[in-house]
């Protein structure tokens, strides 16, 4: 995590705050900060999304390419995550500084999406054992203001929702197969991300735990539990992080919170995405120039 140094006094202030459910910026323990989303911001991608969560800003681009199927599962496409901690997010990322964090995020995302119901990889298979679509998801950290995992997972889901794959027609004639790409830009296939997970990070501060921790809060949290929660209320991946530990009982209610928050997060995200999709026509681009 990108860490800021805090004085003991500040830490106690924050910890007590978490205790009586009123945080520095007036939030309760289970509140997210204000989220801003925009999709299809990068025209050169098959799908993209930009999200801003207070100071955290993340851009996700999805590129879909035709590739060889992997020998172990010939009837499926692939999804690959790459996270780039750009050095203009924070100087700490310069050189190889951001690598570890980047790996952690991409690993977590990969694990979160590594189960069939999140994203149906069979749909991405073109010719069994030969050709399939490979979905490259590139996550770019533009600014770090806490809870990067959550933010990136949301951005990824949005971008995937926004992704459109050109329609392919496969014709077999004696042995070798022909692939034909339809040139109509609107004749496309969309990914079903309804059940894709969002990561909810529960940071343990003092004896209570909060969601969407700000950078300061992260600085005084010893252990956090990450849950990739689907809309159905299932966990597709879980991971404990940080140098602290939980007692068995506290994990239970963390899971409870995780489920509650996760599901509502998914819900409101989908609503927004759908609504944006609906008035795509009359939408004007915001982009970065505001």
């Amino acid at each position: 995590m990108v860490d800021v140094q805090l004085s003991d006094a500040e830490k106690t202030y924050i910890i007590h705050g978490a205790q009586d459910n009123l945080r520095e910026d007036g939030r309760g323990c289970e509140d997210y900060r204000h989220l801003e989303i925009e999709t299809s911001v990068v025209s050169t991608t098959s799908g993209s999304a930009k999200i801003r969560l207070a100071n955290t800003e993340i851009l996700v681009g999805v590129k879909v390419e035709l590739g060889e199927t992997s020998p172990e599962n010939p009837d499926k496409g692939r999804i690959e995550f790459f996270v780039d901690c750009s050095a203009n997010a924070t100087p700490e990322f310069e050189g190889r500084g951001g690598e570890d964090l980047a790996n952690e995020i991409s690993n977590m995302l990969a694990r979160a999406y590594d189960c069939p119901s999140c994203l149906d990889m069979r749909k991405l298979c073109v010719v069994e054992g030969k050709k399939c679509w490979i979905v490259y998801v590139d996550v770019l950290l533009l600014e770090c203001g806490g809870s990067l995992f959550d933010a990136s997972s949301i951005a990824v889901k949005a971008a995937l929702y926004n992704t459109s794959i050109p329609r392919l027609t496969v014709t077999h004639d004696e042995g070798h197969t022909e692939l034909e790409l339809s040139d109509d830009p609107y004749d496309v296939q969309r990914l079903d991300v309804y059940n894709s997970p969002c990561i909810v990070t529960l940071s343990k501060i003092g004896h209570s735990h909060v969601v969407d921790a700000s950078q300061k809060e992260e600085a005084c949290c010893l252990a956090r539990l990450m849950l990739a929660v689907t809309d159905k209320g299932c966990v597709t991946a879980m991971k404990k992080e940080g140098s602290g530990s939980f007692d068995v009982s506290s994990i239970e209610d963390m899971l409870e919170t995780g489920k509650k928050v996760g599901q509502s997060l998914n819900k409101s995200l989908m609503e927004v995405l759908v609504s944006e999709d609906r008035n795509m026509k009359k939408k004007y681009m915001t982009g970065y120039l505001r």
Partner: protein
Amino acid sequence: MPTDTRRITGPESSVSPYSFCKIQEPQPLFNSQDLRKDGRKCDQVRPIFLKTGVVSKAQGSAYLEQDGTKVICAVYGPRAVIKKEEFSMKGQLRCDFKYTTFSCKYRRQYQQDNEEKDYSVQLLEALEPAVLLHKFPKAQVNIYVTVLQNDGSALAASITCSSVALCDAGIEMYDLVTGCSTRLAGDRLLLDPCKHEEYSSKEHSEVNNGSVTVGLMPSLNQISAVTSSGEIQFEHLKKAINKCSEICVQLYPVCQQSLSKSVKENIKENT
């Protein structure tokens, strides 16, 4: 051409013979009498063999064996921090997890791959809470874990192994950390799964198929590591975590045994 000049190099690319043999459909995890492939019951853990002091030049070391899973771990330090860093009153822990190239069905690479990196981090975070870091200011302790043979539950095994190694090194700790993993299959829990029993997304598609690994500090009853994969409902997840922690508690005395044995031996030598 990025060829590895520091090693004897073979051909550019080579393929495992296993990818040439015909794919046999996955056989059921347990038979009619609820016995697993290797004859275990669902809630039965493989016997553990633990030994400390296997690396003579290391501060502390341990070797753990659970039938097919063989893990060795060495602990060095506390020693001066190698690369220049700012002053810290707390000591640092460093973990390095590695599979030997021949430890798995498919050959591993020399460089740490993502899984190994990920495990290194999880291992570190599993052990950190248990160590009295303030006892060795501005120094670091290195923990090197090598899996000699992997037949499932490698992470769990390494957690236990390395915590014992830490003890052997005389690093002060609040508690041991023991690891256990389980495989969820529907409403069943297969404890301490073998390689072929572990969850993989391509074979098992239904809900509540996955695996959970837990690292526990038994006597403080604190969970220091927990990780899951596969789509699992919260209720099952809880169940799995609890079951794992139960087993972890039972592992405590086994570590205790091998440790106290080594201590007794030391005493023998010294007197």
